[in-house]
């Protein structure tokens, strides 16, 4: 896949699994940010991760409900953070450095109170 000279962002990036530099899953490419450069050239600028990035893709009422119950947080992962794209998207930094570990950390605090965790 790396030998290809183009990247199909709808198929190879959108909805793919993100893994951080320690190979820990840290969300999906829920939405993409594309910038229109000079001469109409499109440039990938960021991968957007989080409940609001997902909610935007839902139709009307569902979108409102999703925002209401799951919050409207979005984390922006700059495109320059992407290290390798295979069937997953590997990032150059750790999830905590990218701000992708908030909910996971809160859940960990809760679950670690149970013995054996």
């Amino acid at each position, binding site marked *: 896949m790396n030998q290809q000279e183009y990247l199909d962002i709808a198929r190879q990036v959108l*909805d793919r699994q993100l893994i951080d530099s320690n190979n820990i899953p840290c969300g999906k490419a829920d939405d993409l940010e594309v910038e229109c450069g000079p001469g109409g050239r499109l440039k990938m600028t960021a991968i957007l991760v989080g409940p609001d990035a997902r909610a935007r893709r839902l139709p009307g009422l569902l979108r409102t409900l999703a925002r209401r119950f799951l919050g409207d947080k979005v984390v922006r992962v700059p495109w320059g953070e992407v290290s390798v794209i295979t069937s997953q998207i590997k990032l150059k930094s750790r999830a905590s450095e990218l701000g992708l570990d908030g909910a*996971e950390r809160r859940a960990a605090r809760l679950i670690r109170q149970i013995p*054996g965790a």
Partner: protein
Amino acid sequence: MKKALEIFLGILTAMGGFVEIGELVFSINAGAKFGYSLLWVVALGTIGIIIYGEMAGRIAAVTGQPVFYLIRERAGFVVGLGTLVAANLVNLLTCAAEIGGVAILLKLALNWPYRVFILLGLIFFLLVMWFLPFQWIERTFGLLGLLMVVFMLTAILLKPDWPQAAAGFIPNVPALESPKEYLVYAYFAVALMSSIMLPYETYFYASGGIEDHWTPSDVPLNRIIVTVGFVLGSLLAVALIIMGARLFLPNHIEPQLPGSAALGPVIVFGKWGLALALLGMFFAFGGAAIETCLSAAYNLAQFVGWPWGKFRKPGGAPRFALAWITMLILAGLLITTGVDPVSVVEYSIIFSVIILPLTYLPILLVAADRTCMGAFANRWWANTLGWFYLIILTIAGLCAIPLLIITHGGKG
């Protein structure tokens, strides 16, 4: 040598984990109502689950991608989300039914109140899932589920009419009394097919391959386990149909399941038959309760991209752990309301058929894709069979709910 042992244990685990409460209920009832004539559906369903189980396992071994990664990538976010919600509702219903089944079995053994056993069962499953590693859970429940082999011996000793049973493996529609009976026959064909091809089996199997750290070198292992394990497992379903046909059909008994399933082994083997049948069913249903509940957590975590897997300590995959704990408790609460596990089973099985095409299409597309799978992509025959089953399942899915309503859940 180590590989041989792994294959051997894998086959036995797949066999012991094949039958759960839905299959048990529908197989015995199919035999009790239509004799041997629905045996062909078991064969058809078994080949189907082998084809798709093999593909899902192969994708997991080659790309490390579990089923809900594929569903989201191939079906897109919105359709994928719909599949996730439906799949997990079915998982919840199935898990609740299995817990209810376990409680009924325990109540037969010791006559305490039913709800006490639901609570005990729930605590037992929570402890097992919290403390035991993945492979231990999979193997313990799979291997002890093999006690169900007592049903195979029972079926043989009940002296079935073998030529007639063999004829049942050829697709057929028997001569029935009324038009309504034909619809009931169709309902049972759809339900039996669905109970064998339950979607959670592929979710769980592929995720399990990743839990066991499969690599492309495990592709042959996957193929052998799926083929031999599922064929042997399907013989249990065959045995249950034969038992239904020999025991309940001639006497016009409508078996009260799952309890009266033990009747066959009791008649043939006495007290020991009863003990083995109850224990076998306990581990078969218990294993399925754990698998459906883990499947729900796998699906959710894989869809939204959380760290998942039992190979991680709960502290290393906390949202995944919270997901399965929540799922198990919800299933327990659902069954505590006093709904009959057997009717929960029927709904879970009928709703399963509807999500089967949505689950299997992404698997087929990825397994056939050379850019993802390279040399391990489907050959022409796997693609042909894959599409063939997709068409059958789509037809079954479209008929499922109308048949459920018209036949009042197979009661005619």
